[in-house]
């Protein structure tokens, strides 16, 4: 038991690994900035989020030691990400398809919401017309 616990507490990763992961994160940052100047239409956000996901995976696996630790922590992390995905995807299902069931269309927030009444910037004709009532 003592030998086993000593082995666990002494799991030391080589310096080169940390520097390599750090270098990869910097390179991926440069890539995502460079790619953002190209125009792929809707694909820009997909590319940017894919690169961010790769970077986050590197941080979680190596810096946070999920690759080497008890897999229970990896499970907790994945559960958090899955719940977040459910949270986002199902909210988007609702907000983007509400007009198929109800008489309202997904669109900008209604300009007669209280918050806009004291805002001169929004009465200057930049607001969407009142037909795109959301709520």
């Amino acid at each position, binding site marked *: *038991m003592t030998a086993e616990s000593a082995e666990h507490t002494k799991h*030391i990763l080589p310096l080169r690994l940390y520097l390599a992961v750090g270098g990869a994160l910097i390179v991926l940052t440069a890539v*995502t900035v460079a790619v953002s100047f190209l125009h792929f239409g809707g694909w820009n956000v997909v590319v940017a989020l894919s690169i*961010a996901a790769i970077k986050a995976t590197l941080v979680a696996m190596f810096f946070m030691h999920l690759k080497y630790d008890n897999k229970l922590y990896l499970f907790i992390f994945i559960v958090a990400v899955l719940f977040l995905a459910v949270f986002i995807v199902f909210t*988007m299902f609702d907000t983007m398809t509400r007009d198929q069931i109800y008489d309202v269309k997904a669109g*900008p927030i209604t300009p007669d919401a209280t918050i806009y009444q004291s805002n001169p910037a929004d009465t200057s004709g*930049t607001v*969407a017309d009142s037909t795109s009532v959301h709520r």
Partner: protein
Amino acid sequence: MTDAHSHQPYVAHHFTDAFQQREAAKLGVWIFLLTEILLFGGLFVAYSVFRAWNPDMFHNAHKFLDVRMGTLNTVVLITSSVTVALAIRAIQLGRKKQTIGLLVATLVLAGVFLVVKYFEYSHKFHLGQLPGKYYTFTGVEGSNPHVFFSIYFAMTGLHGIHVLAGMAVISWALINTMKGKYSSEYFTPIEMAGLYWHLVDMIWIFLFPLFYLVG
């Protein structure tokens, strides 16, 4: 095993050994990090909804964020993640001075991040690119441009508070390292502070492209 406690003063009496204690601490921190992901999750949902409703306005408004500042801060936070990871490695090897140096470097980098953020925020305050009804800027094309700046300040502001909290935790770990409380046998608090700091870095990894790059 019975006399292990007398040799390891850092093991609380309700744990079998140091290994079990460390695993319990890690489990607790990971569950906390799960709640943190879901806390930011609510704001990521808000971002998705606002962006889906106002795609063109988001695109126009995001041009008013400085990509150079954002890139600089991304590099700064990634570097600070490396230094805190190396600080844990240093204490694992029993190198106290190196640990202190790397934790100080992490704090300095966190400070640089906040200073850059301060310049970005004060520039936006100056231009009136403020959240909600305080928004007075007129240069963004499209409807409801203040929505972009509302969610920008909400998400980067909450992240900034997390940077401050991370600095507090790392400072605490630093002071205890200087007091000689940690060794190659016991360094759990530094490791837990590191996990929190990496999460703060990870959230910025997503905020950076969503606001500065694709808007």
